[in-house]
């Protein structure tokens, strides 16, 4: 088990290095220089050249990547915080510490001051959505997989497919039209403050609804397929011919087997909900992680992009690890040999 965890951690580190380097390299091809972006459009060319030199931004890619990694690991101080750059960037944690994601040129703040707050907001949104997606998709999936092609299966399948095929921006606009304009019971934007007169919980209703509507149908379809497969297995026949009722068979024999394969799919939704909810966050002006990543990408704020990448990779690897543990719990064939 210890070896297993160690292997997983090593894999996670390797993935992080690869992903961060890839992102770093891709950012090379975006127009505009770091110095120009940091100083703004009204700085003179001399100022830009001076900063470029100061930051050694003309060094080869690998050298600069190494420098960024050094800052992150706390080996070298962040060059942007050097007072001689004249940028006046200051991190209260100091210029050199482990986990220093650097300075966000977009927000003119240390990345660590921005990103965790946004991640927290998205976690609330994603967590609430996930809490609804799991039971809904399981119930829908199991019920429709119980009898393939039956009336219930067809009805639930139509609901699932329809919901999944409506894009988030469309359902967002639709819901806003219904509950904000025609029947104004909910706020149309969710800035997570009470200045607009709406409570924070009420601001969460519509974004969560959009995510659930978009996502649960997909997961339910996965569970349905798995359930159909399980219901055709001979051990289900054994259970039925033992004299068990349909309910006993489903709860006692089918459910756990049917959840083995979709378990991974369910966990993958966490990744989607953390980094893939840009559209929903944009529609509702939600101050979340996805929007931060989008803004940073558009601006070329490399420090923020890198930080977001590392966090996303960490979440993905962690969910995968949880998935493996879950497999072991669900399926004794993996646990015991």
């Amino acid at each position, binding site marked *: 088990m210890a070896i297993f965890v160690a292997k997983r951690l090593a894999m996670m580190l390797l993935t992080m290095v690869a992903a961060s380097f890839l992102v770093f390299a891709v950012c090379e091809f975006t127009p505009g220089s770091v110095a120009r972006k940091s100083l703004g459009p009204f700085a003179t060319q001399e100022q830009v050249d001076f900063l470029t030199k100061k930051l050694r931004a003309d060094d080869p890619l690998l050298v600069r990547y190494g420098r960024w990694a050094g800052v992150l690991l706390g080996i070298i101080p962040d060059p942007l915080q050097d007072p001689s750059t004249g940028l006046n960037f200051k991190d209260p944690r100091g210029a050199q510490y482990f986990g220093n994601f650097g300075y966000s040129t977009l927000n003119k703040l240390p990345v660590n001051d921005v990103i965790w707050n946004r991640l927290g907001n998205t976690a609330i949104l994603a967590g609430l959505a996930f809490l609804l997606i799991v039971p809904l998709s399981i119930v829908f999936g199991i019920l429709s997989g119980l009898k393939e092609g039956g009336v219930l299966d067809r009805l639930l399948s139509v609901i699932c497919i329809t919901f999944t095929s409506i894009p988030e921006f469309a359902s967002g606009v639709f819901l806003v039209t219904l509950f904000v304009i025609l029947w104004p019971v909910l706020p149309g934007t969710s800035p997570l403050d009470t200045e607009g007169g709406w409570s924070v919980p009420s601001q969460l209703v519509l974004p969560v609804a959009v995510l659930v509507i978009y996502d649960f149908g997909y997961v339910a379809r996965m569970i349905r397929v798995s359930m159909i497969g399980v219901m055709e297995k001979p051990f289900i026949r054994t259970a039925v011919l033992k004299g068990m009722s349909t309910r006993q068979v489903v709860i006692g024999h089918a459910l756990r*087997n049917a959840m*083995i394969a979709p378990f991974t799919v369910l966990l993958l939704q966490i990744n989607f909900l953390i980094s893939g909810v840009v559209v929903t966050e944009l529609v509702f002006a939600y101050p979340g992680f996805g929007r931060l990543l989008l803004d940073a990408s558009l601006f070329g704020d490399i420090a923020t992009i890198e930080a977001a990448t590392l966090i996303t990779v960490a979440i993905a690897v962690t969910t995968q690890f949880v998935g493996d543990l879950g497999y072991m719990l669900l*399926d004794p064939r993996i646990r015991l040999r």
Partner: protein
Amino acid sequence: MTMVAEPISTQGERASETPLLAVRDLRIEFRGKAETIVAVPKLSFEVKPGESFGLVGESGCGKSTTAMAIMGYLGATGVVAGGSIRFEGEELVNAPAHKLRAIRGRRIAMVYQDPMSALNPVKTIGAQLAEVPMLHLGASRVEALDMAAAMLKDVRLPDAGDMLKRYPHQLSGGQQQRVVIAMALLGRPSLLLLDEPTTGLDVTVESAVIDLIGELRRRYGTSLLFISHNLGLIAESCDRVGIMYSGELVEEAPTRELFGRPRHPYTQGLIDCIPDIRQGKHSRTLAAIPGNIPLPSERPRGCLFGPRCAGFRAGLCDRAGMTLEPVGERHVVRCVRWPELEVAHRELPPLSGESAAPAAEITFSDITKFYHLGYHKTLKANEAVSFEAGKAEIVALVGESGCGKSTLARIVTGLDRATSGEIRMAGENIAAIEASARPKPLLQSIQMVFQNPDSTLNPSHSAGFSIRRSLKKFGIRKGKAAIDQRMRELLEMVRLSPDFAARRPSQLSGGQKQRIAIARAFASDPSLIVADEPVSALDVSVQAAVVTLLLDIQKTRHATMLFISHDLALVRHVADKVVVMYLGKVMEKGTVEEIFGGATHPYTEALISAIRSTKPEGAERNRITLTGDTPSPVDVPRGCRFASRCHRKLGSICDREPPPIRRMSATHEIACHIPAEALESPRHPDEASDRS
């Protein structure tokens, strides 16, 4: 049709007994969107209290469907369209769900074909067993587990307490089937349905399971409905037998009567086409039944067996409304010509056999194959396997699953490389050359016929495609016309008409597919054919035809053949030499006469003893029942591999030291600690009857 069950119920003392199970005029249909398939047109039979009734037939004859209809479990499309199934006087057809639930598992229980898949992989054995008493007997969880433990002891599973905590995948196939049997018996049912309960199990395990079923039946007084395609098993386990063909009962009689005096041509054919363990290679040809079982949609008028019957008379056999006619005490047959056909007992011509001592075609010396599975774990698939096959000889590799016979085939054909050792063919060592590295002439000279024809033919190519490709690749013929000509000859060789070339595998029956596979294998004019269980996936009536064909072609082509099989009766019929393997090692090798003659290795002895014969006198043999299961090839016994299961084990020496090789004759070797003289003493009671 009205007189169907008359002869049974008017006879003897059983007339007063009400049947436990009475199936009357049962009609089962599968209603799809496009068509309705009549799986069982009209079926009637009875099972009396305490009786064991065998239902025999080949695949697709409707025997399993009938069992499922009794359980009320025909799936979404299956319907009982007519007739009745009465169990202890109660009607089961269209019975309400709650009534069925009260009967299932409590009064009628079932043992399934594939025990691994019949058990829930994520629940412990204990949990799955305890469900039955909790559901039907109102037992608490603790009581139910106690009952389960007691039942596991009854089915001879060691260490019941530990067994309850295990999961199905941690058990061997034989143990799983014992669990399934225990599960069925926990509700103390009065009727037990056995649907091919030992198909897929090794012969020695099968033998033990059958003995167990017989013993439990005597103890609990349970009636059995035993469904099988294996005539030998039925002959030994049942009181009465019904022979099914294409959804109909064609003959029904007490077991001894049925196998002693079979009246229906189909029954006779079935009995004749299974090789007899007591008869050697050159005794007789296997009598194949020509043709195939008709599809339910293509049933002929009148006698369903008519198109395949030698005694068919137009105008007589193709009249509708054939009935089961009484031919003797409790013996009925559905054949209008039975009085005339009765005498037509077939005298089968002996196979002309010339056996010379030919030059060696292929020589195996010390072939060893280890698979390394991580630290200090080695799967020993083959260890020091040595034997040779002469030109045009058939050498049978015999052994149960995990004995390494298929690994050996993989090494010969180059699908795998030997860890050490040599395989010499035409002077060259081919043991370490994989197929991709083999020169064309070598590839051409070794061809394989695989076990399952369904999965070895590409479903998207026509049957002729693979034959043509083989011809083209190896340059046997040049030019399209010549290739097509040769392909037609090959099809003719396997007795298929040329228009089969255009058909897809889905349009072919199992036997036809295997013929195509044989034609493909022989297309490149190989000198060595590796046949890995070539007929074990086929129906018995088709098996005989394919084996006969394979032997014919092998003989005319003078090809050497490695015949891999678990079926000793077939091996005795087919092979010149036999190599018996157990857990990767050769236990015994010799000529067929030597292996099936007096002195044998205890394992061979057990294998031979495990074979069930339909001949009544076969039942009186002393059966050797092996205990336990084959050890894992990862953790092989230190001394003799077979020591842990051997019934003639001498003592600790067998566990400590690898056995010496006893040379019984120039060609006969036995690896055993028992001295040659002691092995010599005759152990087969049935050898006495072999004189006939």
